[in-house]
Each structure stands twice: as structure tokens, then as C-alpha cells.
């Protein structure tokens, strides 16, 4: 049975590493749901966080194959552990005057923040987990969003 898996992959920070990692997924026909990459505190290394739908056997095989790549140092399947996950979402809305209060209230209860207001354009930001982000999207939909951008997950294990 396919479930969502979050893989945290520590790699050396050099050109071409990301394509090696991504190729492993595309070469086996897996779709990457989300992908984030950034250097760690030690800039010699980067962390790649990938979420993907796959069954357990397939994920085990992908993890082994990732390990086989020379620039890959560590691969963790965070879905099997208790992990903390966060994602950043930016939503640009064109809000009618009569809806402004409602939109602001939705932002407040979902923990989102208005980060920019220009003439009738409100941009809100939420940093949260999948569940909370989904709740915000459902609530805000009726008010007509203009643009929507999400970062993809970053995750860290609890212990």
C-alpha cells in the first residue's frame, strides 16, 4: 500500500548532487510530491527533504539506492519516526471590502499572518504542518486567491 514518506537526505554540497538524487526517483517512475534543498550550518553539506508516495518495500529500495550514491551521507525515512514537519505557504488574495474582516479572522484562527497589503491585495503566510495548511486552504478558497506558492516540507526527527 502506498503511503506518503518523508525522506531526509544529507549530501555533500556540490554541483550535480540534486540531479543524482532526483534521477533515482524519476528513473523508477516515482513522483516527487515535495522537494526542498538548502545547505546545513556546515556549508560543505546540504539537506534534501523529499516527500513521495510509495509502498514500504519501494521506499526501502529507494533508501538503499540513495545510500549507494557517493555524495549521499545519510538517508532517514522520517515517516517511520516521530518527526516534526513544517512548510511555508504564501497566498495572494484579492479581497473585496466586505470580506476583509472574514479573511483576517481566518488568518488569525489558523495561525497565518498577513505579510503584505497593497491596494486590495492581501498576501498571507502560514508556517505549519500539512493539516493546518489544508484547513487554511479550504477556508480561504471561497474568497478567490490570485496566487499560491508553497515551499515543500522540511522535517526533523524529534529525538
Amino acid at each position, binding site marked *: 500500500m502506498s503511503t506518503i514518506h518523508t525522506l531526509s537526505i544529507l549530501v555533500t554540497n556540490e554541483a550535480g548532487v540534486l*540531479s543524482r538524487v532526483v534521477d533515482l526517483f524519476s528513473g523508477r517512475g516515482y513522483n516527487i510530491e515535495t522537494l526542498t534543498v538548502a545547505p546545513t550550518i556546515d556549508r560543505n553539506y546540504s539537506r534534501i527533504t523529499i516527500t513521495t508516495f510509495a509502498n514500504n518495500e519501494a521506499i526501502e529500495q529507494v533508501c538503499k539506492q540513495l545510500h549507494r550514491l*557517493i555524495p549521499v551521507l545519510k538517508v532517514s525515512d522520517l515517516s517511520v519516526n516521530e518527526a516534526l514537519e513544517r512548510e511555508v505557504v504564501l497566498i495572494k488574495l484579492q479581497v473585496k471590502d466586505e470580506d476583509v474582516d472574514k479573511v483576517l479572522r481566518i488568518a488569525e484562527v489558523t495561525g497565518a499572518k498577513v505579510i503584505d497589503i497593497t491596494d486590495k491585495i492581501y498576501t498571507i503566510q502560514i508556517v505549519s504542518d500539512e493539516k493546518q495548511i489544508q484547513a487554511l486552504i479550504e477556508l480561504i478558497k471561497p474568497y478567490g486567491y490570485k496566487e499560491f506558492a508553497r515551499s515543500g516540507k522540511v522535517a526533523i526527527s524529534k529525538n
Partner: protein
Amino acid sequence: MAKELFTGAEIFLKSLEAEGVDEIFGYPGGVILTIYEALYNQKAIKHYLVRHEQAAVHAAEGYARVSGRPGVALVTSGPGACNTITGIANAYYDGYPLVVFTGQVGTNQIGNDAFQEADIVGITRSCCKHNYLVKDVKDLARIIKEAFYIATTGKPGPVVVDMPKDILTAKTTFNYPSEVKLVGYNPTYKGHPLQISKALKMLKEAQRPVIISGGGVLQAGAHHELTKLAEMLEIPVAHTLMGKGTFPESSPLSLGMLGMHGNYWANYAVVHADVIFAVGTRFNDRITGCLKRFARDSQVIHIDIDPCSISKNVKVDIPIVGDAKNVLSSMIDELCTKALLVDHKAKDKWLNQIEEWRKKRAIPECPSDKLSALKVIETLYEYTKPFKPIVCTEVGQHQMWCAQMFKMDEPRHFITSGGLGTMGFGFPAAMGAAVADKNALVLNIAGDGSIQMNIQELATCMDYGFKVINCVINNGYLGMVRQWQEKLYHKHYSETKISSPDFVKLAEAYGAKGIRVEKEEDIIPAIKEAMEANCSVFIDFVVENFEMVYPWVLAGQPLNKVLLSNSQEI
């Protein structure tokens, strides 16, 4: 005093020398002219000019297979580099160590669609163990050191080093590193002691055990250990195509090859085994048949140096990640510390059962009175046996017949493309074998289809005096595909009838020797004549068109559904 400066091209050659490389295969071109200039001025490294870059890589692999040392190929950018892909993929699938050096356009031109530019690092990413684009001449020596280290350690494989033109002319000092630092690369050699004990316990208690010996045993140089363990525990051994020579086929415990065209009894033993002990094999579909039915009632112990091979196809009960030689030695050591109690009654029953199965053999059928391909290969084997030939093959029917006929007691004497199944591999690989072992009798047993894929290398053989005896099993068809069409596609021989040049005249045109054989009594005289010749030879064995390879387990069928003759219904 200022330190001496060297160009990238000089550093390249000095690094090869430091790695102990003295023979390479290659083809020059625009962007690597500086290397060829540096080659011109030295004597430490011998370069063999091939006629096609693909052949350079296959030759390097043939060299690696016979010598156990990494093979090296050097080609130019763009088309030169692209032509190496099949060779690189072939070595990757079968796990042989190669370092392939490709030229690249200057760093300021990369990505600009320059003349003879190809993104070879991108193209080879999925078919090599690792690859590098050198961006600073100061990195060159380190990268070459790493490339050889990665190619030869863990599960061996090909590594590609792409060298832009300006890197080869830039200058720096030369310090060849004495060790590599690769934090993300630490192959496991030593098996887990607990797993080893568990495996031994299972093997000792097994009533119907069988060993499957693969190419990993050869790579690890573990054939003596495997033989010793099998003999101590009295376990019969089946080998894969890549595992040929890892267990002496003359031993009564040898079951020969298993799989699609393996022995009936080898397949039956594997199907009926209660414990399968697989060493250095990745359970390719050609040896498992229908996966769902494979090892359904048996427990599986699997040693492999590559964790990816474990539980990829077949679910394993006791996995042991490690080098076959290391793990098998530990097993033998542990066995020696305790009194060994083999249940002879159960073992005898099992071995007797296998003896019963041994009576079931494929029935050779030659539909007409033309020369039989099987007879040719059998005679080649019998006649050349005392000379311990290195036997290379191409891919197809002749390859399977050779795997069945040639009984090997030693590793590194049967050179064939297993995983990728590359037609055109055999002849250049045979060239590489001839370079690796200059006194060996080198045979390339080929089909009339395969040989035409890299036939141009006869010119290379003539230039350098390599002696390869090409035995062309000429049946006028792409035989293996035709065999499938006969049984599975209503005898619709769609595009499998293939014509050939007059191989005798062709050989002569290259200055080589050509012999044609159409009658059984001419086989041995032809082999004798070929062996006496002082150059490469083509023997054109004109054989029956419609012979079939049996035993045959059709693709997707379980291993015990073995066809033994053409009259058997599928």
C-alpha cells in the same frame, strides 16, 4: 626553489602511472589532443588505438575481467564520449571496474552547444557507479585517485571522468594523494557475526540445501572459500552465468548453470531446496523465472556486498552485507572451531534425488543434415580444453550453448555480457583479454549477427598483433530472437533473417586468416590451423539455421517448467 608545474594532460598520465596503469584503450579527438601530445613523449603507458569508442570500453572491460585490475579507456568529447555509453552500461550491470576518461569542450564553452559537446556527466549518470566533471586542474589528481578507488572497491563498476580542454592545458604542481576521503562512501566488507552464525546454523540444519554462486564470488576472489565451504557441508552448487568458474564444474557437487537456459537438475534443485544460500548474485529474472514462484517454500540466505541487491527481487531471511571472501572465510573459521555433524542420511537422500534429476537432459535436435552448432561448440570445448582458453562470447544462442558446453574449473576464463546482454561485446572484450594475458589462447565464440556489431576491431588486432580466434556460428539468423519467434510468434521470422559478408574474404581483406567449415570432419583441422596461425583468425562455421537452445524456461514461467526439446508443448 619553486615547485615544478605540469599541465593537466601531464598530470593525467602521471596519475595513471601512479595507479599502476600501463595499458589503455582509446581514440583521439580535438579536445584531448594535449593528452595525445603528452602520450607521444613518454613510454610508461601503452595506448591501443581501436576503431570505435564502444570497443575501447569493452576492451577495457575484457582486460579488467581477465586481469582483475581496472580497465582504462580514453576518448574525446561529444560523439567519442557518447559512443562509450553501451560499454559503460555493460560494465555497470556486470560490476567490473573501469575508469573511462572523456574529453570535454573548454569550461567557458560548456552548455553553449559547442562543436562536439555532449553533457556526458548527465548522460552517464544512470549507467555508471559515479562520474566527475573536472572544473579545476588542481582537483584532477585527487579526482583520478577517487575514480580508481570507487571503481575498484565495494561492488566494482565504471567511473567516468570528464576533462575539459582548458583543464588539460592549465598548469599546477603534481601531488598524487596517498589516500581518499569520501565521507559518503564506506563499503561494508565484513559480514555481521551474528548473521553469519545464524546462516551457518540454518545451513547445518538444512535437509535440502543448495548454493547459488554468482559473479560476486569471482569479483571477491572467493572461489576457493566457496568451494571449501560447499565441500565441508556437502552442499550442491548451481552457478549463474556471471558465476561461471566460481565453483569447479568437474566437481560432483556442481549442478552447472541454473536459470532460463540452465540445467534441468539445477533448476529442480533450487525449486525443491529448503535453504537457498545465494552468494554474490542479484537474483536477475533470468535465474529466478517467475518471481512469485521462486523460493516459495525455501528460506534464503544472501551474501552481497551491495545492500541494494538484498531483498530487491527475492525476499531474504538472513541477509549478510559484506565481501564474499571475507564472509565465507568467517563461516569456514567458525565451522572449524566446532565438531561438524552433517546429517549424512538427509544429505544422501537429497544428493540421490538430484542424481535422479540429472537423467533429464535436453535432447539435441538438428533439423537437417547441415553442420550442428552444438557439435561445433562441443568440439571447440573438447579440443581446446587442455590449453585452458579464455572464452569470450557475444550474446544469443551461441552464448547459451557455450555457457552449457564449456565446463569451467577456474574463474576469469569465461567472458560474457550478462546483465546488459550486449551484442558486439565479445570481440573487443577478447582483444582486452589478449592484452591482459599475452600468452593465453583467446577464443571469441560469436553469432553471425553479433560479430557484425564490432567487426571493425579486426584492424586493431592486426595493428598490434593481438591473436583472437573468432569462431562465428553462422546460422543466417538472429538465432535467439528467431527461436522466440518460432515458439511464441507463430514462426513469423520478422526481421531476424540476417545476411553476412564472406567472413573468409573479409578476414583476408584485413590481412587476417579466414577459414570456412561446413562439415563436421573439418572442425578440428580448422581449429588446429587457427591455433597455428600467427594472427587473428575468423572461422566461419556455416551451420544449421533452425537449431534451438534447450533446456528453456520461457520468460515469466517458474523454474521447474523446463522445456527439454522442440517437440515439447509449451
